[in-house]
């Protein structure tokens, strides 16, 4: 279990994480979703003890990270965003080493290394140096090094960045298996689909703040049954805003440059009428994208921008 309360991490004037509060439970995959620079890795760094919080408290399995940090860290497995492995050593040597650092010895260590090698699909390549591995294989081994000692808490910082689709699927399956075995998983990502497919509960972060959290169902409910409509073209702001204000149930989410983002129920049925209104206001529509309610539309609704911006 991870309990984060009022976590704040500031570097001088720059506030990387601001008053973040959440709880991740055993057997649950808790996602931290947000764009690059949102504060996800900083939050994770504070939880695994690499960074000292400016204020707030973090408890891992009941151990306070400030007063009892070493015990908390020993019960935790971390797969950092970097491939934190020794490239000159083989896959087996890496797992052996990280297992030893986590306190495994003798037969138990060997058994766990064999199990993890099988789990991550690297039994055949166990003796090869890591430097010869593909990006996806390295990512899997990076994950393997985090779970070799069967941690109760698993911190995964964007573990699928830069991997091929096959490796990604395999990694996500392994993460689910860990949660299924009762491990509390904290998972950061900026991939919306990944968060939707994997996480039991989610917190959405932007500019260091948790702007919303809950289960996927709870978060979708924030949107209601509203579609997201993105239009590109030229839109004279004053007349367009006035025209849209006359349309019932249309919410303007974003209005910048040649892009207009709107939220409304049953958008497809209302499109002809909407286009007529926009044309009368002097707008010229060149492109249209209609999105069903999902995390992306929620993120846009909450922040006024797309996740990948």
């Amino acid at each position, binding site marked *: 279990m991870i309990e984060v309360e009022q976590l704040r991490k500031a*570097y001088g004037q720059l506030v990387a994480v601001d008053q973040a509060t959440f709880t991740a439970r055993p057997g649950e995959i808790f996602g931290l979703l947000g764009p690059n620079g949102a504060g996800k890795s900083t939050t994770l760094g504070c939880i*695994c*003890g*690499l*960074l*000292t919080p400016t204020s707030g408290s973090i408890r891992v399995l009941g151990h306070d990270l400030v007063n009892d*940090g*070493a*015990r*908390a*860290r*020993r019960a*935790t497995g*971390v797969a*950092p*965003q*970097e*491939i*934190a*492995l*020794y*490239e*000159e*050593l083989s896959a087996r*040597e890496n797992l052996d*080493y*990280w297992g*030893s*650092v*986590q306190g495994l*010895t003798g037969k138990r260590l060997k058994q766990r290394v064999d199990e993890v090698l099988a789990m991550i699909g690297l039994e055949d390549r166990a003796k090869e*140096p890591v430097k010869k591995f593909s990006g996806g294989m390295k990512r899997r081994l990076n994950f393997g*090094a985090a779970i070799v000692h069967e941690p109760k808490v698993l911190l995964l910082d964007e573990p699928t960045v830069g991997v091929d689709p096959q490796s990604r699927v395999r990694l996500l399956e392994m993460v689910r298996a860990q949660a299924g075995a009762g491990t509390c998983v904290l998972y950061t990502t900026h991939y919306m689909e990944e968060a939707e497919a994997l996480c039991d509960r989610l917190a959405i972060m932007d500019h260091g703040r948790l702007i919303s959290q809950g289960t996927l169902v709870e978060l979708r409910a924030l949107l209601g049954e509203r579609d997201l409509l993105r239009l590109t073209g030229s839109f004279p702001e004053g007349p367009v805003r006035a025209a849209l204000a006359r349309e019932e149930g249309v919410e303007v989410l974003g209005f910048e440059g040649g892009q207009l983002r709107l939220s409304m129920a049953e958008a497809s049925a209302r499109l002809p009428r909407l286009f007529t209104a926009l044309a009368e206001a002097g707008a010229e529509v060149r492109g249209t994208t209609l999105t069903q309610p999902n995390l992306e539309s929620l993120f846009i609704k909450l922040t006024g921008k797309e996740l990948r911006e």
Partner: protein
Amino acid sequence: MRLLLTSSAKDMRLVLRDPFGLLLWLGIPVMLLTLMNLAFGGGSTGGPKPRGILFIADQDGTMVSRMLGSAFGQGPMGEIFTVEQTTEQEGRRRLAKGDGSALVVVGKGFQSRILDNEPVTLTLVTNPTQSVLPAIAGETLKILAEGTHYIHLAAGGQIKQITGLSTGLNQAQFLTASLAVHRAIAEIRPYVDPPLLDVEFKTRVEEPKNTQPFNLTAIFFPGMMFMSLLFLTRGTSDGLWEELSHGTFQRWHACGAPTGTFVLARLLAATATAAGVALPALAASWLWLGVQVANWPAALGWVLACASCWYLIMLHLQILAGSARRGQILTSFVLFPSMLTGGSMLPFQMMPEGIAAAGKATPLGWMTANFDLILRGQATAGQVTGWLVMVCAASLALLALSGVQLRRKFLRG
């Protein structure tokens, strides 16, 4: 302890996976010493000796001038110099070409001035591109000049008598004159400057077995060994940046493992690597290059203690620098001046006295000079213990400081 050994074994494994780097560290002292040995035509037992050509332009052509010239070709000088008789002009021309080490010009009237007790000038022209051999020639000439003066005082009359003969000496005359010269020298010996005369007599007769043969490799060896250790410790301390950039140090910390153990494990691996380099280098130099190793355990212990200390100095500088590039620059700022003044590039024996004394006061110079004493058996057990205590105390302080700074600088930001 288990964690320390595991981590240290991993670091050693990483070193062994880079055989080129290991060979390079091992190769520096062996290669330089071998080159030195080859350059000076060394042998296996007596050690390498410098050799050069000494030109003598004897314009006087008398018995005394010939005696002076032939002195360079005898005894140990004969092993260093090949003496060639030449004219002054030819000698200068060949020196300018770089053919020889020095030219001694014995002017006309040399013998008569000596025998008449008048001032005499000997001219020594040296080759500016060489330093050791011309210096030896100069020193020898000074000794010979003094010796000639004393022989004149002791046996001037007899020599004058011999040189006055128009025909050659018969056996009886030669024997009489020799005995007279010998007796005169023996009588006057206690009253003239004994050290100057002793130099001649002791070297040749009294202590030939106790005197170490001249061995340039042995002079260079301590400095070369420490030069290699400095490169090695700088190279191994560089590994910190790989740990930091790959995130393995951060992962270590996230596992709840202590930073002090991390540093200590790296130190152990660096020391083991130093042992892997120093022991073969020491053995090879002793076996094939004639380097004396009077006390093996003390020599190896000293080298390893100093290597540990230098590793921690380098690591500390890397941490202070804060990045790999700045680390390279900062360690170079310490490495090269240290080697220049600390006897690694030029042995203290070849430095001017003042500079050598200053060099020995630097950390590297102090370590190198002590290593030299240990090799030659001139350090007592008490002295070696005292030095080891000092080095270990410095290492402990650096170890603690490095652990704290590593945490402060790269963790818990």
